[in-house]
């Protein structure tokens, strides 16, 4: 099974390393032709404005939209913003997920943080928390339509959402050595 990682800009190699640890061979996606035959795509962390502009410049917006209508796509941080329908900002978006996001919702870099979150859908009953790293992170202000809230901070703010085969996380599982979120996504690609 081949999974793509959008490699326009950002920490795509960190995602590739985890996929390789799961015996999945990742394909770097930079142009529309790179999407053919893929069973899933990860949009990495990075700068969402840069990723969006490069996607426009290399005619990737429509191919990515079409891909996301039938295949699994997971966006982390900038990727989650790019997947959304609304980011309250003038920048290119894929409009795939019915979520509203707020960029840099926690403030600037000095406010970036890490925290353990309880993630019952990952822990198979052992209550092992998922260590979540937030870097100038967005939050998901609202989930609408078919999108569902998947994970919240202790204060109730939404930091992960799912809509059928689409997944958005405002933190970076690729910056940890915990492979469970990537496993969860690989299961989604098969559904």
């Amino acid at each position, binding site marked *: 099974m081949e999974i793509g990682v959008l*490699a*326009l*800009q*950002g*920490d*795509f*190699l*960190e995602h590739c390393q985890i996929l390789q640890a799961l015996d999945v061979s990742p394909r770097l996606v*930079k142009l529309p032709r790179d999407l053919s035959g893929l069973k899933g795509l990860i949009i990495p*962390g*990075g*700068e969402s*404005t*840069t990723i969006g*502009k*490069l996607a426009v*410049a*290399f005619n990737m917006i429509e191919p990515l939209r079409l891909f996301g209508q039938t295949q699994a796509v997971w966006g982390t*941080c*900038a990727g989650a913003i790019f997947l959304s329908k609304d980011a309250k*900002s003038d920048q290119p978006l894929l409009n795939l997920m019915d979520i509203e996001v707020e*960029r*840099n919702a926690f*403030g*600037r*870099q*000095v*406010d*970036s*943080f*890490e*925290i*353990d979150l309880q993630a019952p859908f990952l822990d198979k009953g052992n209550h092992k*928390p998922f*260590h979540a*790293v*937030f*870097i*100038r992170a967005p939050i998901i202000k609202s989930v609408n339509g078919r999108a569902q809230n998947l994970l919240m901070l202790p204060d109730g703010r939404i930091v992960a959402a799912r809509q059928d085969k689409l997944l958005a996380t405002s933190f*970076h599982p690729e*910056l940890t050595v915990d492979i469970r979120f990537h496993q969860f996504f690989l299961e989604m690609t098969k559904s």
Partner: protein
Amino acid sequence: MAEQVATFKVKKGLAQMLKGGVIMDVVTPEHAKIAEDAGAVAVMALERVPADIRAHGGVARMSDPELIIKIMETVSIPVMAKCRIGHFVEAQILESLGVDYIDESEVLTPADEAHHINKHDFKVPFVCGCRNLGEALRRIGEGAAMMRTKGEAGTGDVVEAVRHARSVYGAIRRLQNMPEEELMTFSKEIGAPYELVKETRALGRLPVVNFAAGGIATPADAGLMMQLGVDGVFVGSGIFKSGDPAKRANAIVKATTHYNDPEILGQVSRNLGEPMVGRQVTDIPEAELIATRGW
């Protein structure tokens, strides 16, 4: 575990998010907007680009906080700012402004000729310049969460950036082929902390993200540095000292993404107008070289 801020993981993490991107020097909010619109991943806010610092002479210091704040208000991407080597009070001020990264930079006039800032003391992450592996690992030992090869700033001549990147990556390749018992002597020779030498050897790369800087002026220069192995590029004078900054900035962003695709590099290199005039590094008297600042 409760929420933890300012860990080395989140400091280093922001640099990881900038990979494959271009960080541009800007001297006004208008420049910052042009850079953001062109696809920059971050901007470096300063009063004068390195080419002008060279031309003006005198003491180059931290920029006016007013300018930095205006630039922070103008763009949504991360904003970096420079302090002088060893000037930890300039760094304290920059941290209080809320900049996203501090560049403890040889481009400004050093404030301390023997010591760099203890960067572990700060919540804000730091990027520092290096010419070789020893210098890189000393800076990381002091707490730098991102590196950049120094090149020779404000020249538009890429030769020093190439020299420094080859030096860093060549040393890592040698390190990987070295038997364990040679590591301590190697650490001593390059003046680097032993633990970081061991970590670099195990990783096969620097423990933090490493960008190229100092002399990059064209999309081809960006492609060259990326193919040599850097994670992204800083462009200082190369953009706003050129004939058509918006177009050139955008072309360098595209070249950094498609650095190994000569066809795309060819397309984005067309009709960019005049590049910055540039100054050959070999013509610069030794006393005027910037990269030698740093200890």
